[in-house]
Structure formats: C-alpha cells, structure tokens
C-alpha cells in the first residue's frame, strides 16, 4: 500500500500519486479557491471535473494519447486516472539535444492537429500540459477543453502554445514553433494550418493595446 503523495500543486488542482485497487494512479482534486465566492467556486469546480473526464474520453477515441480515466467523482471534484511518469514537455525541452527538441514539437503538432481535426480544442495548450513518457507524448489537463471546429478556438490553442514556448524557451522559440507547425500542418493540411495561423495572429493583435473611438 502506497501512501497518497502530493506530486504537484497546480493552479486549480492538487495531483496525488496513490495506490487504487492495486495499481498506481493519479488522483486529481480540484481545490477550493478562496478568491472566488462559494457559489461561483463550487459551480466551476463541479462542471470542470465532469467536463474534463468527458473531454479526455472523447480525445482518447480520436486516438490521441491521454491517461485513461478510472473513476469520476464530481461531488468531491475528483478524477482518478492512469499514471504517466512524465517529465512535462516543458522540462524535457530544457535538456534534449536540438534535433530531439524539434522532433518532440513536431509530434505535438501532429497530435494537436489530430484533436482539432476531430473537433476538440484543448483550451489550455501549454508545454506543461504535455507529458513525455519514453518519447511518447500524452496530453493532459482538459478542464478548459471544448468541442469546437471554430478556427478562432483552434487559433487560441496555437496562440497559447506559441506563447508558452516563447516565454520559457525563447532562445529556441522560432525553430521549435516551426517544427510544431510542420507536424500540425501534416495532420490538418496546409490550407487549414495557414487559416489557423492567420487567426492566431489576429487574436494576438486584438488583445494588445485596445484603442477606443
């Protein structure tokens, strides 16, 4: 019997490694946020827990690697899922040689493209939300995921990812994002890839210094 061990304290959930019916699993519990009023806080945690489980099951059906869900308990805001060892892609990109860095990003482009083609957007697409187990990438953290075929929503995924790479791996940002787009373009086709990039740029401009008339 393994004692539950807190392995990560994220922004919205605590991640425990524990033993459950004889296997090592991850327990993800969405914790109370004292900065939100109770009505808002409980509604958000309950709906995101149930929603995340649904999204992960749907993404899995598309053939995108995600940890398997074992148990859902929206009333205690908890999900139990398969344990993927990691590290995160964010951590791995610091230590990999340049060609491996690029190939990981290209792989990520492939699986995100596969999701987008299947009508699902991630909603929180950073390199911290990708685990790399022996070079195989797993997507995690689907609490903000959505069923969507809108170019706008796909553009947001690209924007968030682009920024995540730019903010932490700025020295390699250009080649890594290029490699990502190569994989992405292969999965969704050049035309759709170009449309999504155009939308990403548009969203980026929109949020910056807003002028009122």
């Amino acid at each position, binding site marked *: 019997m393994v004692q539950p061990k807190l392995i990560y*304290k*994220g*922004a*919205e959930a605590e991640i425990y490694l524990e033993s459950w019916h004889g296997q090592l699993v991850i327990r993800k519990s969405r914790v109370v*946020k*004292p*900065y*939100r*009023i109770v*009505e*808002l806080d409980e*509604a*958000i945690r309950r709906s995101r827990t149930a929603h995340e489980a649904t999204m992960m099951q749907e993404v899995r059906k598309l053939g995108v690697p995600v940890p398997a869900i074992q148990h859902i308990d929206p009333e205690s805001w908890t999900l139990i899922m398969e344990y993927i060892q990691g590290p995160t892609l964010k951590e791995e990109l610091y230590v990999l040689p340049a060609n491996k860095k690029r190939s990981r990003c290209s792989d990520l482009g492939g699986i995100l493209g596969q999701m987008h083609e299947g009508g699902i957007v991630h*909603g*929180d*697409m*950073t390199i*911290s939300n990708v685990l790399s187990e022996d070079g195989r990438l797993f997507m995690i953290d689907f609490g*903000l995921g959505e069923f969507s075929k809108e170019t706008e929503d796909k553009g*947001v995924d690209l924007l*968030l990812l682009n*920024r995540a790479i*730019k*903010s*932490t791996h*700025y*020295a390699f940002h250009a080649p890594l994002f290029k490699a990502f787009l190569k994989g992405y373009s292969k999965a969704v086709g050049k035309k759709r890839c170009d449309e999504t990039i155009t939308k990403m740029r548009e*969203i980026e401009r*929109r*949020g*910056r*210094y*807003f*002028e*009122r*008339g």
Partner: protein
Amino acid sequence: MERIPLQCLGIESTAHTFGVGIVTNDGRILSDARDVYVSAPGTGIHPREAAEHHSEVAALVLLEALKKAGVSAAKLSGIAVALGPGLGPCLRVGATVARALSAYYRIPLIGVNHAIGHIEIGTLTTGAKDPLVVLVSGGHTAIAAFSGGRWRIFGETEDITIGNLYDMFAREINLPSPAGPEIERLAAKTSDFLPLPYVVKGNDVSYSGLLTASLSKLRSGAKLEDVCYSMQEVACSMLAEAVERSLAYTAKKELLLTGGVAANKILQQKLEEVAKLHDARFYVVGSPYTGDNGPQIAWTGMLALRAGLTTGINEARVRPKWRLEDVDIPWRDGSA
C-alpha cells in the same frame, strides 16, 4: 569625466492624463503634477478632445512640476516621454513638448514605453525585485515576468481589457469614465450573485461575453447593484485564476499589481489570496501611482539614462501600438 545623471523629468500623455514628474537618480519622487481630461457622462474618451485638453494644460503642468521639485529646467539630466502605447493624438502632445525641451536646453531625450513605466513605478514604490506583474488599466490586461532581458507575456486578455469592461459598462449606464470606483461602490451594496459567463483560456481571459451578458441582465430588469457586484466578482475572479496559473507556471515568489485598475480593492483582495496560496509576497503599486502619472515615465527614463540609453530627437516618434515585450531592458538582472 562622464556626468552622473541627477534628476530626470518625465512626461505622460498616453490617454486621459497629462502628467509631469521629476525623480532623482536614487528614486526619490520630487514632484508629480497632473491634469486629467474628463469625458462627458455616457461617452468614452475622445482622442482629439483629450489631445486638445493636454495642449491647453501642458505648460502649466510642466511649470508646476518644476516648481514643486525646486529644479530649474536647464539643470535636468534627462527629459523622458511616453512614446506609446496609447492614443496617437494624445501621445503627440507629450512628444512635442519633450522634443522642444530637449532641443532648447540641450538635454538628452529618452523615449519610454508607458507599460514599462507602470511596472517600474510598481517595483520602485514596493521594493519588489523579480515579480510576476499584473498590469491592469484601460489599455492593458497583461501578466508578465522578466526573463532574458525583456518582460515576457504569460497571459493577457483576448479581447477587451478589464478597464474597458468597466468603462464600456459605465458608458451604457451614463456614468463618466473612468468609472471603476463608482462600480466598486455600487457592488459593495449587495451580495446577490447572478450567474455570468466566466471565460478563462489557459492564462488568458476574455471579457467581451461578460460585458454583453452584464448589459443584457441590466436590460432585463436586474438590479444595478447586483449586476455590478456579479460582474466585478466574475471579472476579478477570472483574472485571479489566470494569475494563479501564471504564478504556478513561472514559480515566481513575488506578485506585483500595477496600473489604473490596481486601485480596485476586490481585485487586490483576490490577488492577495492567490499570492498566499503560492507562498508569494503580494505588492500593490503605491496608491498615488495606480493611475497614469509623470513619475512613472521619469523613473523609467532615469533607469534608461543610467544604462546609457537615449533617443535622438529625430527618432522620438510616437508608437501607438508599442508592445511591452518588444522593449529591451538592460537595467534589470535577467533571471530564468
């Protein structure tokens, strides 16, 4: 021998405020003169009218700043001016005054990014060393941290800023802008929460849906206080969540709130809770310096001047869309 810069004057004219401040090289604020353009209730800022206001008050505000500081213009070590981001017509007033002063007195000119000014006055007045910065105002809703010589954006709004949300809502109910304090006062009268769209995408927020839904609640007969309360709770909670995500991602141990909307007490409380959850120290920019002001530009100019950066008079053109992450910052120690 090179002269050590002693006092720097800064001119701010990016939006509502025409401000002039003077600071010393060790960060003492000698003066802070301002005159604010107020738009008629129910209307937003009109760039040309605001610029006319700035032209009219410029000389008086400048003289007041010099007089209060007890400094004669000829003795200044630098003239700093906010060249952007901001409203073109307003920016041009400040730039014109700055170029004239610089040319007449042969004092170095320093073009400053207004957003960097909000950050630097925040660290100066709080002592924060390496914070995650939350910059909130009419022009910005951005979450940034310093790394590799520049401020990097970790999260921001994907449509309108939190300042716009308040101002556009206020315009519809005929309050003069900036209307933050009045909405905050109305919100404090109730705790009846109406569900409104809560939209967080990664470390980003989106406020346009919240604005539309708040206005439609109001039109369908909800009480103004309840709408103000609910809109403020949702808007500030969304930002707090985006900040918490960024704080978890960057693992910074300081959190600094700066910019005009930093004066909002509910936002302050929520971000303080976020900081506590991640063992970070929480700082809010010194209270007179939440809104746009001359000292924020003067101090950033001083930092640039000490690092040997000046701007040629012919290069000192306004940059209405100048992004904060495009500014090289040689005066800060880089940290990963």
